[in-house]
């Protein structure tokens, strides 16, 4: 049986850890609320963007446009949104798994645009090509930064370096459930047009269709990446909140167990002392 002192030391160390996880949980709860509000606010923009692009694509039909047909290159670019900090449960590894476990995305044919340090570390370790390392965007996403990234992606696509562009991020379903998603950015696939809200064939364009696509698609991609960032930030904090909540209750359990052990040890030592005293007095008497 461990000594009372050992148990006590162990218990206070776990208590210290529990305080940290508790504080981290509180911090991520607050951050989550903020991130969620931001994600909801921007939702409006993306819905409208999605609808408008949908109405444009449904109108132009099957025209030959470089943004609508796959490029020649075998290479693919993927923008991966992970966090800069760990301790968020499976958040980062789930996003990474989307890519490493996907047979259609081969390691040698992939250009990784890593947003967030955690994802980059894993991909670098596995020998993926890290085309760009952008840890700062996730801290405070600015639309202008996303625009610049989109411009670089489109340039790489237009130069024929990559034939397809993907986005991997975590979709924020609700506080307890986040879902990693892989989204194809380019070529733009014809959207599912079953839903209502699509303006049918009466829409006119100034300038003409093809030119309009040239100008709107980059904005569309920027908005998807930006929206993905907002979702990812909310998801990160949601995942961390949950992980820290679990850690806190695990610590609680361990503390309870150790307290019990400690009390038993104390009881044991008291009993032992008493027996010794009584035995001693009996020997004398």
């Amino acid at each position, binding site marked *: 049986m461990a000594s009372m002192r050992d148990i006590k030391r162990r218990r206070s160390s776990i208590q210290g850890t529990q305080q940290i996880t508790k504080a981290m949980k509180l911090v991520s709860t607050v951050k989550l609320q903020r991130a969620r509000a931001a994600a909801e606010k921007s939702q409006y923009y993306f819905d409208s963007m999605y609808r408008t692009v949908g109405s444009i694509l449904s109108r132009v039909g099957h025209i030959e446009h470089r943004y609508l047909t796959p490029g020649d290159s075998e290479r693919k670019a993927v923008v991966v949104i992970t966090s800069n900090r760990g301790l968020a449960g499976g958040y980062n590894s789930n996003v990474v798994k989307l890519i490493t476990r996907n047979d259609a995305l081969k390691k040698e044919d992939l250009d990784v645009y890593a947003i967030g340090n955690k994802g980059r570390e894993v991909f670098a370790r596995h020998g993926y090509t890290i085309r760009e390392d952008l840890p700062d965007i996730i801290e405070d996403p600015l*639309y202008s930064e996303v625009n610049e990234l989109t411009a670089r992606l489109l340039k790489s696509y237009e130069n024929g370096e990559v034939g397809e562009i993907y986005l991997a991020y975590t979709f924020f379903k609700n506080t307890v459930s986040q879902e990693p998603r892989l989204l194809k950015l380019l070529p733009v696939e014809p959207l599912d047009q079953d839903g209502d809200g699509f303006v049918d064939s009466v829409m006119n364009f100034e300038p003409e269709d093809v030119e309009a696509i040239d100008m709107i698609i980059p904005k569309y991609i920027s908005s998807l990446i930006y929206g993905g960032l907002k979702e990812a930030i909310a998801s990160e904090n949601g995942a961390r909140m949950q992980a820290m909540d679990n850690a806190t209750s695990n610590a609680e359990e361990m503390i309870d167990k150790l307290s019990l052990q400690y009390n038993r040890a104390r009881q044991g030592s008291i009993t032992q002392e008493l027996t010794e005293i009584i035995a001693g007095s009996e020997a004398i008497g």
Partner: protein
Amino acid sequence: MAEKEIELRIITPERVFYEGEAEMVEFNTTEGEIGVYPGHIPLTVIVKPGILRIHEKDGERIAALHSGFAEILPDKISILAEVIEWPDEIDEKRAEEALQRAKERLKNKYENLDVARAETALQRAMARINVIK
């Protein structure tokens, strides 16, 4: 009244910038300036930097609209704006400086100058300054 007013919604990635009814809306597009009354044919246009004028029933509101695109329907306009500012959000001094910088660049024509970018910067700065004045 319903026939005389058009629903206007201006959305940016960060917020809903404006939501309301207007009698007429004016702004600048790649094809030139455009004024939209209720009952306009469905049209999608690309925004160019310029002044956005919202003619409301009792007065006019203006804003500097820099980029994005607009979807016009007979009873509704949705402007998806990447950058848009009310006059009181504009830093006049910064806009003046940006204007000078852009003019300088276009005048000197450095090697590998991104002319399109400099021109956009110039238009933006001018839009900002015009909105304040």
